[in-house]
């Protein structure tokens, strides 16, 4: 099987799994317990926290462990506005965010918050001018993803951050689930985000583990209430094995980032060239300006599902625009936002690379895709 669906999830690294098992075997005590085993587990947890804090250029106490990207995003979306109602009730986000952001703000809208959705251009990038125009005195939160999960568009985080911090008192949240370990993303005073969300399973870590990280002390209300773990901000016994495994996966992702992004860019360019030969049968959603690990395109007058089945028969795993939306019948909101011609709306598929892919995988994909096109489109191309 050639797995090219790494933006849906990744296969955990062996080293990460080993950590998970070892911590479960040796340090399973509750890190809040005062006995020796608990203190030991807590020491290990703090080490994991410290390691991630270093990678994100913040302090240890500003790293909280969550159950994944969705929880981290929800936490930011609900926690910041509700703690800052005295400043206002206005939120800005984009049309192409992950559902864990969009559904969150939609629910806030029902509660009386005002939300502005920034439009994106054909490359999936927002307009700084529009952001500037929408920022208001009472804007409390701006949430913008770094890399789009369906087509790889990269937002200019630094530029966005400096405008937000200059023009408003809003907190800037960045959903970095698809970018961490692929592109540099970290805190950098006023030139960067205030909150970052990260998911473990997108970086060859484990499902059910994530991080929400803060640049400084935050005014934020917790989602989960209970025993007051994680400085009262995220109750629930902290999953030490997941946390340590995540720290390891994050370290490995950052350490290999230069090397792997070079590899992904090479494949990305190679495939752009390859797809060009199919002429108007193929419409690219991704461009060479986007993230290198995501390549999404659409085949004219075909359903994505049919392409996926045909490729799968040849041992190749890809997905439609995103795993979350692929089971739903309607066209994805990202595809809608890109304003595609109707001939191309149904046939979107996404390739996403990971650390375990090889040059051979790409060669195999090209072979299989050529066959599939012949089979489905005949010799007309």
């Amino acid at each position, binding site marked *: 099987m050639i797995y090219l669906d790494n933006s849906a999830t990744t296969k955990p690294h062996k080293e990460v799994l080993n950590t998970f098992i070892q911590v479960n075997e040796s340090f399973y005590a509750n890190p809040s317990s005062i006995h020796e085993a608990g203190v*030991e587990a807590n020491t*290990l947890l703090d080490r994991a926290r410290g390691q991630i804090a270093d990678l994100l250029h913040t302090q240890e106490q500003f790293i909280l462990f969550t159950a994944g990207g969705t929880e981290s995003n929800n936490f930011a979306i609900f926690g910041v506005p509700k703690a800052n109602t005295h400043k206002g009730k206005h939120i800005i986000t984009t049309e192409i965010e992950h559902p864990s952001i969009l559904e969150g703000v939609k629910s806030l809208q029902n509660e009386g918050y005002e939300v502005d959705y920034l439009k994106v251009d054909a490359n999936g990038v927002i307009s700084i001018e529009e952001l500037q125009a929408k920022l208001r005195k009472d804007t409390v939160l701006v949430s913008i993803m770094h890399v789009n999960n369906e087509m790889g568009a990269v937002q200019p985080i630094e530029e966005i951050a400096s405008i937000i911090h200059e023009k408003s008192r809003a907190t800037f949240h960045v959903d970095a689930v698809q970018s961490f370990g692929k592109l540099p993303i970290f805190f950098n005073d006023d030139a960067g985000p205030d909150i970052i969300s990260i998911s473990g399973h997108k970086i060859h870590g484990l499902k059910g583990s994530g991080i929400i990280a803060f640049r400084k002390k935050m005014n934020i209300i917790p989602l989960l209430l209970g025993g007051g773990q994680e400085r009262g901000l995220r109750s629930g016994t902290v999953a030490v094995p997941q946390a340590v495994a995540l720290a390891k996966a994050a370290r490995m992702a950052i350490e290999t980032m230069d090397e792997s992004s070079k590899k992904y860019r090479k494949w990305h360019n190679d495939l752009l060239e390859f797809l060009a030969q199919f002429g108007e049968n193929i419409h690219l959603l991704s461009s060479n300006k986007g993230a290198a690990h995501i390549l999404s395109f659409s085949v004219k007058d075909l359903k994505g599902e049919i392409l996926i089945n045909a490729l799968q028969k040849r041992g190749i795993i890809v997905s439609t625009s995103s795993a979350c939306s692929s089971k739903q019948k309607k066209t994805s909101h990202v595809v809608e936002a890109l304003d595609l011609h109707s001939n191309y709306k149904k046939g979107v598929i996404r390739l996403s690379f990971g650390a375990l892919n090889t040059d051979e995988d790409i060669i195999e994909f090209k072979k299989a895709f050529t066959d599939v096109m012949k089979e489905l489109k005949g010799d007309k191309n």
Partner: protein
Amino acid sequence: MIWKEILIRYGELSTKGRNKKDFINRLRANIRHTFMDIAPLAIETERDRMHIKIESEEQYEVLMKKLPTVFGIQSFSPVAVCSKDLDEMKKLALVIMEQFKGQELTFKVEVRRSDKSFPLESHEIQREIGAHVLRNNSNISVQVKKPDVELRIEVRQDAIYMMAQVIQGAGGMPVGSNGKSLLMLSGGIDSPVAGYLLMKRGVRLEAIHFFSPPYTSDNSLQKVKVLANELTKFGANIRLHVIPFTEIQVLIKDRVPSNTTMTTTRRLMMRIADKVREEIGALGIVTGESLGQVASQTLESLTAINDVTNTPILRPLIAFDKLEIIDIAEQIGTYETSIQPFEDCCTIFTPANPKTKPKVEKVNYYESFTEFDELIDRAVRNREVYKFPEENKVKDKFEGLL
């Protein structure tokens, strides 16, 4: 990297005429000890200052990070070097002033021309470099009397040395220059601060802790070890003597009226500490007592406790407010450790109503029915000694997991 050496200005040492040489040697030895991990360091000493040569970026970073904690240093400056050529000097001056970009500030150029053969006179150098810096930095203006920044240029035999930044040192005197004392380290907020203040005055420390398992947990002992280890970052090794105290404490509870147990406990601790002090050749005993803070720290209590020894008891916090003590504990990084909520030996045996004004005669009378001497000897004999800084064992246990 432009920085080639760090210039260190001594603290109070400059004023101490005769012992100066000893002090300087002590400071040099302490610096070597503190920076063992980036050894070897080339250190040159002069009458009123010291130069550390920098050979790598790593050395520079470690020095800048840890030098502010070394006692006996008034201030220090990273120094850049260039050849004895006016154009080179101008270039370097701009690079050095670069760090103040964006700040509105005043400056002046100060020249020390120890190589008298250098063609330019001091005031000519001042004029040339000053004008050049001003031309290139609109945010900087001249102020001769009280400038924000002094760009110091030294014309030495071998090259030109330049610096602008003056970083505050920890002050005080090099640890070890004022003998050795034994610190009573409880695990609370006060005693590490007391130890720190004495270290600042050049006193080398060993520490003593009274351990009463199972009434106190391994965690509370662990906490004391961490505190002892934290104090070592001020430039000296520390040995920690852990006294098995359960037997004595239980006996006191049994034999002495409950409102006097606290005073007696303190007196016995003091006797034990005094024995250990004698064995290790220390001169004084240091405590974190602060007048009136708790029942055992009233003048009457202190008198009753002090009655068991003639050794000088050093109480640097005696006139400090709790909040002042907490401030220092936060600065030196012991506060977070101290407030971890583990039972220590004082909290468990504390009677509900301890006497705040114990009478020495009465305490002596109550204690006279029990033979404590042998128990004291045994506790001293059976003490466990730990040495810090300790290689962190926990680290090894987690090796590979992260």
